[in-house]
């Protein structure tokens, strides 16, 4: 009996493999091969060379870009958490009908392209933009504020674009926290704020970690937003990659930067997966 069940299992595995093979092939052709080619380019140019990597670790413009990218990503993540947590909490606390409305409002911007949203922020934040005009009309400022073409504008727009990636995992986690636990806390005499801090908050932490990881990692690779709203000074790592190709035509250098970025992202995932399973983070279970 165990023999035949093993055989059955093996057959099932074989069938599954056959079923996913087209998808695996696509992934191999479109992701694994190009990324491998990319990594190869970074170490091979008329012979083996580590020159491209040496430059990243010794020249300070690369360091500055990596530092700036991590700073911006951190700021964006913290802001997205501060803004996203109450939204997710609200969506979880209100009756079903309302939570659908709230979630729809969160997801709606997904259907607008990143480029359009970046330009929308430009229209809002620039010198003659809606916000500056309004503030001047209300006599709150004399000179228009520099809200865009700097790191500030970049962070604002990036938070807006990435907010859904924070809210959705948070909401998914909060949904699974049994309401009974809060009632139990209340019945034992805890105030609402104490039940929140002692019961709800700790149970929602996996969602916080998942949301923060998603936002942080996605932000590391942002390109269009800093390019359009950064005023040329906010040089994130992705822009280094494009400049290396466009301006200096050095595919090797660009590849090396991309590889370092890719490896940092993988390391972050590995580190996070020690605390929370990746399946869960990507919303599987």
């Amino acid at each position, binding site marked *: 009996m165990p023999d035949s069940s093993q055989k059955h299992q093996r057959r099932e595995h074989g069938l599954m493999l056959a079923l996913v093979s087209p998808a695996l092939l696509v992934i191999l052709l479109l992701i694994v091969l*190009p990324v491998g*080619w*990319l990594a190869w380019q970074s170490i091979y140019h008329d012979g083996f060379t580590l020159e491209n990597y040496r430059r990243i670790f010794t*020249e*300070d*413009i690369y360091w*500055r*870009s990596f530092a700036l990218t991590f700073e911006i990503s951190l700021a964006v993540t913290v802001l997205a958490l501060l803004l996203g947590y109450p939204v997710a909490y609200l969506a979880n606390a209100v009756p079903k009908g309302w939570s659908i409305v709230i979630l729809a409002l969160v997801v709606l911007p997904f259907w607008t392209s990143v480029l359009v949203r970046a330009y929308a922020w430009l229209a809002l934040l*620039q*010198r*003659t933009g809606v916000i500056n005009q309004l503030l001047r009309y209300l006599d709150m400022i004399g000179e228009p504020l*520099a809200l865009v*073409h700097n790191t500030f504008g970049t962070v604002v727009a990036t938070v807006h674009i990435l907010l859904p990636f924070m809210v959705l995992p948070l909401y998914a986690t909060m949904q699974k926290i049994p309401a009974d636990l809060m009632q139990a806390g209340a019945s034992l005499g805890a105030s609402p704020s104490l039940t929140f801090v002692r019961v709800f908050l700790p149970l929602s932490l996996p969602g916080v970690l998942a949301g923060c990881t998603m936002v942080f990692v996605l932000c590391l*690779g942002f*390109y269009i937003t800093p*390019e*359009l709203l950064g*005023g*040329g*000074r906010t*040089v994130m*790592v*992705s822009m280094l*990659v*494009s*400049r290396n*190709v*466009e*301006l*200096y*035509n050095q*595919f090797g250098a*660009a*590849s090396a930067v*991309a590889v370092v*970025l890719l490896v940092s992202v993988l390391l972050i995932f590995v580190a996070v997966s020690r605390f929370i399973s990746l399946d869960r983070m990507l919303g599987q279970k």
Partner: protein
Amino acid sequence: MTTKRHFGFGYALLGGSLGLFATTGIAAAAEQITFVSQGGAYQQAQTVAILDPSAKKLGITINQDSIPDAWPAIKTQVGSGKPIWDVVDTPTGYCLRGGEQGLIEKLDFSKMPNAAAMPEAYRSPYSVSYEFYSSVLAYSQKTFPKDAPNSWVDFWDVKKFPGRRALRNHPIATLEAALMADGVAPEKLYPLDVDRAFKKLEEIKPHITVWWTSGAQSAQLLNDGEVDMEMAWNGRVSAVAKEGAKVSFTYNQGILQSTSLCILKGAPNLETAVKFLNEAVNPVHQANLPLNIDYGPGNPKAFETGVIKPERAAQLPSEPANAAKQALMSYAWWSSPAGEAAEKRWASFMQK
């Protein structure tokens, strides 16, 4: 990041597969070339003014392709040993750099009388000037209804001309402007004193609101009133002015730049490409270009054809009187080792 990193690889694949088509199709086809330009209104204008008339006159077929930045593609195509393009219209510097790196054919001017008759400064062993544009000082007429800034010295003078400024996020033309702001005469710019230029740029850097990266962006900045003055390409400024924006520019101390035609090394239709190059700089075709778009002809003889009316000519960057006010960019210097070093230095200047 993702779009850029797959770019070269995609091209290699594309080049390979299209190369296959080219070899199978060649025997049956009449004389033809593949011509590559930068797309948009510009490519449309040259199709009407130059490409269609040339094809008709020579009895050849001109297949068109377009790409905003041809350089990486040139490198991959020629590198793969099977280029699919013949002639490219690209900033002159790329033709020169490509020539030095063995990516671009050396031209035989004895087969191109029209090109041979052009001034020597307008051609190189690898390229022929095709059209001219200029990096000019543009400003808002709302901010400066009178006494507008009229030179790079004025642009650098933040006390006399207060306001927000923008420059291109690229060293080409920007270093020239900085040196002119520091008192270097337009005809004495080259070889560029790079140290002096960057030092002068440090001076204006705190006053630059935006370092723009695309021509469309530069036009937008001026149109929206986000900046009061900037370096911009003349065609972009006149385009927004035509739409009613209160903006203007001066050719004084402009930096006259060109795109050139050059032929890919080992081009599939080399002989036809040479014939086309000659025809493309024919003064009459060239004179038709500014009737369709705000760029100047690459061949100055176009101004002698009578096709361009004097009032139109006065608006064009390469019209002799306008050209005399400007600095002619030396692409030879920019593609020299010193030029390449200056380009690399730009990145660290921006991030400091």
